[in-house]
């Protein structure tokens, strides 16, 4: 392996000048990327990892952002080294997409909706490789083949909305690869995707890297993903690099408490824990007088933290026994939900898709039933049908003996108090024009819970405190909160009606693993405190396994298999379940390629 350096970042400082003052998003960081190497940058949202990558591309939105200091040296194969920060905008355009290419987080929004995928990939090829239309098209089809897109000719002429998320990300990769770049920056390329798709994309990137001899900067919030792909790892926290080393060093012998926190917060697979270790279990952060942060270590090792929360098999068995001795709180019988896929001239439906196809199961009071499957398997539709947010085609949903599907408007309103849902996207499920206090108090007003608004406000404040927010947050708007905080607000809103039954629909999928751990812990605490019954929906089997007593695997609208969560994980019966289990990023040292 050629060890000559390819990219040298030294003392990079990128600041954002906002109304509240200057934010040092990237605060004097230095690192080197060598030829043929994959460098992982890990950290939570706001740690400055994306800003670092955008700084290298010189794509920092300006204003409010600005690169205020440092040097980014790029060493091209033949020519003299270049300081990217000293180039004019015009000169920089020749490097972007040509020598340094980038893949973004959101494949759904990163492709232009009004141009065909082929057109968008060809554009870069025509620009940088100076090929004519015909040659560019040929090359594009060739690359589509390489990124394993099915039927390249069709994809070439397809618009982004006609493709799945994974396919779109493959098109993005094709675009980035098209001009044989030296450096490929991948900014959370798999975060918005299902674990199974994530696995396929990671494999593809590893293959391509070998083939075109590019170096990769791989940015992610999930250390588990890094283990499979990176050679070297940088851990970032609040704009600074807190630790860097080879992937083995980081995993086997993490030094910084933050790194340990990131390693510990992924749900463990081999044993059960009461709660997940979170970053604040490993360290305390104090703001010092000069504004810098002082970090003190609390727990020495990841193993120690996990040992503290391990659950014995004996207590597990007891829990199961008492759970399943009860009458089910919810029975779903032969439930089907169908959507119209085709209509005739007069608007009459002529063809249907069965999103949920003849599904039956029971849920017992106090238990968590996990529901796992890939996008499009019908798990979300199933959840919504149970709550009658989508109308069922046939079947029964008995909640304490009453058929939810037959209820009239008034009875349904009563039932809404009992059954609540927490949605996936905490960004779009809160109305941006309502303060969070209003958002939480609104359902109580609708259902006339408590005597007056004064009492309701007290209750809202109590709820905010329950989910670890503060009373002073009452009058703030959603945009002032982080993703994890917003999800807490959504949880508080669901709790406002004192429900007994809650459906969590991918409630943690949009969150960083470290934040995900906090929210999962909160959900478990609430279950103990209020004796909730959950249906927990996710595409990530490791998360479902951690949360659930029993697990249900869904595929193409049908239940593949169902049973005790640990048993299914340890001895999956169906191919589909095995596939889901194989897709979980293990993040284990044994898996690391040397």
């Amino acid at each position, binding site marked *: 392996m050629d060890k000559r350096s390819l990219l040298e970042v030294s003392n990079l400082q990128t600041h954002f000048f906002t109304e509240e003052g200057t934010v040092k998003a990237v605060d004097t960081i230095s690192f080197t990327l060598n030829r043929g190497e994959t460098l992982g940058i890990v950290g939570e949202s706001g740690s400055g990892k994306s800003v670092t990558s955008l700084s290298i591309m010189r*794509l920092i939105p300006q204003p409010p952002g600005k690169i205020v200091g440092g040097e980014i040296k790029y060493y091209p194969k033949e020519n003299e080294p270049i300081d990217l920060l000293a180039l004019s905008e015009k000169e920089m355009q020749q490097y972007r997409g040509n020598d340094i290419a980038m893949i973004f987080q959101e494949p759904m*929004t*990163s492709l232009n*909706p*009004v141009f065909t995928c082929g057109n968008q990939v060809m554009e870069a090829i025509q620009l940088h490789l100076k090929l004519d239309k015909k040659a560019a098209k040929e090359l594009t089809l060739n690359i589509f083949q390489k990124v394993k897109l099915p039927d390249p000719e069709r994809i070439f002429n397809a618009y982004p909305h006609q493709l799945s998320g994974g396919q779109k990300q493959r098109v993005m990769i094709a675009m980035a690869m098209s001009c044989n770049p030296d450096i490929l920056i991948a900014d959370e390329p798999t975060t918005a995707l299902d674990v199974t798709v994530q696995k396929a994309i990671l494999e593809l990137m590893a293959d391509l890297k070998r083939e075109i001899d590019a170096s990769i900067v791989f940015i992610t919030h999930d250390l588990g993903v890094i283990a499979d792909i990176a050679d070297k790892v940088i851990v970032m926290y609040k704009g600074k690099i807190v630790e860097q080393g080879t992937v083995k060093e980081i995993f086997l012998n993490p030094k910084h408490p933050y790194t340990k926190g990131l390693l510990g917060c992924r749900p463990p697979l081999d044993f059960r824990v009461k709660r997940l270790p979170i970053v604040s279990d490993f360290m305390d952060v104090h703001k010092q007088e000069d504004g810098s942060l002082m970090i003190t270590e609390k727990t020495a090792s990841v193993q120690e933290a996990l040992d503290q929360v391990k659950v014995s098999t004996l207590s597990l068995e007891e829990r199961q026994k008492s759970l399943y001795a009860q009458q089910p709180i919810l029975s779903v019988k032969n439930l089907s939900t169908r959507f119209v896929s085709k209509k005739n001239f007069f608007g009459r439906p002529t063809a249907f898709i069965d999103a949920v196809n003849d599904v039956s199961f029971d849920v017992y009071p106090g238990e968590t039933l996990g529901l796992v499957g890939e996008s499009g398997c019908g798990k979300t539709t199933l959840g919504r049908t149970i709550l009658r947010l989508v109308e069922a085609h046939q079947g029964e949903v008995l909640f304490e003996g009453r058929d939810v599907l037959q209820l009239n408007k008034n009875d349904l309103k009563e039932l809404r108090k009992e059954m609540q849902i927490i949605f996936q996207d905490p960004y779009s499920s809160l109305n941006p024009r309502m303060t969070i206090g209003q958002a939480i108090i609104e359902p109580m007003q609708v259902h006339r819970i408590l005597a007056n608004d004064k009492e309701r406000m007290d209750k809202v404040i109590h709820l905010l405190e329950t989910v670890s927010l503060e009373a002073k947050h009452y009058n703030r708007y959603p945009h002032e909160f982080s993703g994890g905080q917003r999800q807490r607000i959504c949880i508080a809103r669901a709790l406002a009606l004192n429900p007994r039954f809650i459906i969590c629909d991918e409630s943690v999928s949009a969150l960083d693993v470290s934040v995900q751990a906090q929210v999962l812990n909160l959900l478990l605490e609430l279950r103990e405190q209020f004796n909730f019954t959950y249906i927990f929906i996710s595409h990530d089997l490791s998360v479902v396994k951690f949360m659930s007593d029993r697990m249900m695997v869904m595929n193409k609208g049908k239940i593949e298999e169902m049973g005790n969560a640990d048993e299914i994980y340890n001895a999956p019966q169906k191919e589909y379940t095995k596939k889901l289990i194989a897709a979980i990023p293990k993040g284990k040292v044994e898996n690391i390629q040397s």
Partner: protein
Amino acid sequence: MLKYIIRRLAYGVLVLIAVVVIISSIIFLAPVDPAQLTFGQRTDVEAIESKQKELGLDQPLYIQLGMYLQDISPIAVIEDTKANQLKYSYLKLIPLGSSALVAKAPYLRESFQSGRRVTEILKEAIPLTAILAFTAILIATIIGISLGVIASLKQNSFFDNIAVVVSVMGYSLPSYVTAMILALVFGFFLNAYTGLNIQGSIRELSTDFDTYGEPVFVWKNLILPAIALGIRPIAIITQLTRSAMLDVLNQDYIRTAKAKGLSYYTVVIKHALRNALNPVATAISGWFAALLAGAFFVENVFNFKGLGEVTVTALLTFDIPLVLGCVLFTACVFVVINILADVLYAMLDPRVSYS
């Protein structure tokens, strides 16, 4: 797509019928007798009654309506007589005894006032209005989109603030006020420099000795009315383009386009503007339809003899066939332009599908 257009056209026909029914009912209920109006004040009862009979005004409303619908329908069953042949100049499809199923051009009857066919009057007025509307919307589209794009690229700059303020002012100003100011300033005070007329249509009767009384085209008479009509759409289009562009420029795919190494110009014009055009297209098509229906006040100010002028005169003189003709044309314009706008959406944005 074709299916969708056909369905929309079918709905359009229903809209037109509804328009005819509603307008006829309103006119019928009004306490005015058109027969009386044609004769003026000094008339005997017999003459009025015979005129009423001739115009079909003595019949109940639903019969009048039925007759009118039969007249305007392109396919109808009518008596196969010489008089009818003269009236409708139809093409016989299937003979049914003394009657026949025929295809014909819609017959909009004759003006109570001038006795000319409504179709003839509209044929004269519509091209003038169409030219005016098209020029105005063209000016508005070009200037509005350019200003909007520039303002969005220089957000919060001096130019941006000026563009926003001026466009709010432009929108707040009624177009007949703009028309009067323009006419006064450029047609009167500055007439010596501009050579523009304070009033006048683009088709006037010649005053030259050789060609006296023959119609001639005076194209410069288009300038001031087109600007007067264009100002408000300019303001709206500027604002819409600006806000849509600001929205689009923050989208992830713009960052992707920049990351490809595309030039600033390509990113803005190809990747951003194309996505920002949808709301703008809505505004443009709506304004265009409204302008085609006749700009009543502005045409009046400039004495521009287009559809607006015809409609206003027809209303003032209670010329029922002419009023109905104008309204029917306006309704047609809106139906057709709305369908065209929907087709345009689908062309601008592949995500829009009508199946």
